[in-house]
């Protein structure tokens, strides 16, 4: 009786051990493949990480894939990568052609909400506070003229570096000397943004806005950062063309708004 019982136990234990070893080995192989496919190399260079993202290798294990950044974004620019997107599964990304980050949340809320600091808020906080202090010092006794919230939000968004925009000179309308009239991405386009010339607090549909430009300059006029990021200038051939400066945050509003069939401006992630 006793002997038979221990025999059954040993067999059960061996069976269990075999299952466990097999499963762990399988998971290990899967993880190895996953790891090779995700860390370091980015298979989709047109996808951006949200603002404040740290280096990709740390990002992959630091991100717990909770989706809090996705939920807080008022323009729903952030999505979680599904299988086959070329990014680690479940990690957040922005596809700027579909919906760019337009900073209409005003406070980099995705960065602030991230519990594991893979979207690292510290540099933004520091820059914001430093800017407020400087503005207060410059204003001197006249400190009531300074709106600390305004100063802080401008300083914070200016140091975002998701990537840098590049213009494709072959397809850009400005390089062809062409203008643009109409709705830039068609009336069915879902993307929203807060235009620099509006007083609204929230974003509105791009499809509702009609443009009429003699020389296309949408990427320049609609940029949420302004003249530190992108300017219009005369090139050697006497054409008025966009030029991206080092102040570009890589937010991708220009990518979303570009009216050519394939976007003529892309953001290359850092």
């Amino acid at each position, binding site marked *: 009786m006793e002997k038979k019982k221990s025999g059954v136990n040993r067999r*059960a*234990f061996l*069976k*269990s*051990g075999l*299952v*466990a070893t097999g*499963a*762990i080995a399988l*998971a*290990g192989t*899967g*993880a*190895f493949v*996953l*790891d090779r496919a*995700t*860390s370091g190399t980015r298979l989709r260079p047109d996808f951006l990480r949200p603002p404040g993202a740290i280096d990709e*290798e*740390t990002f*992959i*294990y*630091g*991100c*717990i*894939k*909770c*989706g*809090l950044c*996705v*939920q*807080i974004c008022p323009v729903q620019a952030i999505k*979680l990568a*599904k*299988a*086959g997107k070329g990014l*680690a*599964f*479940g990690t957040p990304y922005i596809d700027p052609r579909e919906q760019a980050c337009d900073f209409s949340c005003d406070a980099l809320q995705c960065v602030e*909400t*991230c*519990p*594991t*600091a893979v979207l*690292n*808020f510290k540099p933004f906080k520091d820059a914001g506070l430093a800017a407020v202090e400087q503005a207060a010092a410059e204003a001197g006794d006249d400190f009531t003229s300074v709106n600390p919230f305004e100063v802080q939000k401008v300083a914070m968004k200016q140091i975002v570096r998701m990537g840098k925009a590049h213009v494709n000179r072959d397809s850009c309308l400005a390089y062809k000397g062409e203008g643009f009239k109409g709705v830039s991405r068609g009336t069915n386009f879902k993307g929203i943004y807060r235009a620099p010339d509006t007083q609204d607090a929230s974003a509105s549909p791009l499809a509702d806005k009609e443009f009429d430009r003699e020389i296309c300059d949408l990427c320049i006029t609609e940029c949420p950062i302004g003249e530190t990021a992108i300017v219009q200038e005369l090139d050697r051939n006497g054409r008025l063309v966009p030029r991206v400066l080092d102040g570009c945050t890589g937010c991708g509003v220009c990518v979303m708004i570009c009216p050519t069939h394939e976007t003529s401006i892309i953001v290359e992630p850092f």
Partner: protein
Amino acid sequence: MPAMLKDYFSTGKNKEPLPPKSKDQLPHSIQGISYVEWRDAKKKNHKWRNIRWSVLLFMNLLFVFSYSFDLSILEGSLSGSRLIGFYLMDPFNALQLLAISSITGYVGMLTMNFWIGLITILIFWFIFGGRGYCSWMCPYHFLSEWAEKLHIYLVKKKKIRERSFNIGLKIIFFIGFLLLAVLTKNLVFEDLNMVGIVSKAMIYGPSLLLLWVVAMLLFEAFVSRRFWCRYVCPIGTTWSFVGKLSPLAIKFEHDKCGYCLECQKVCLVPHELWFVQRGKATQDVHFVGPDCTRCGLCVDVCPGDALTFAIKGASALV
């Protein structure tokens, strides 16, 4: 005090068993009814199951509605969330992250919200019984209960054979997944995590990984009953460590027990109910061990009310 603590953690398993009760001492004899009549009296009682399913569905729908209707009450997912502004972290996710980041040095970068979230959830489930998370919160557990019904039916019809494994398997998986995370510098388990996949599929929309969930449910229905929850899930194992300390537990009273074993038949972790068998109990009162999910199925089914929800150590304090 040490004696009291020893009592608190003792399972009583290595003590000398009490003598089994005689036929006259069994509850059905005392009530003067037949054994079968006594045993089947509470077959249709689903009080705790209904309460538990309501809580589980309510919490998971709260996640979904918080996002889709912008209620902002319970944001995020079961991998990490925020309840009216207070962060909550999945403990095994956090454990993997801590293991990797203590090696790479990233650990110092983690926000205060992360630590608060981790400590809050550990305290919460310490109070509410560790693996209580599994049966009262986990959406996969809910799906798995339906696969289990099919499994039990198939076994009863003799279409399939019951296949069980060693319960120590879950420790191997727990350590294995932690090691994998450290070796690959990747939260490997998060890609296989049933809780996370189901929770995120409900909130953010379905993904291809749902096929993995379906595959596991089929495996549980046709091969091994509750395989994932019993033998694999390291989140459950993490919670069972918390459950070891938790005061909320199922209490067993030997004098009300009729040795019918109905409780072991419905239990996710029947090895924790070892004392219900004739001649196994070593004390008049036992508390169910750390793997117990406090689901209350045994409380519902127990004809003699020998199993109840109770606060461990309460008698010592009063």
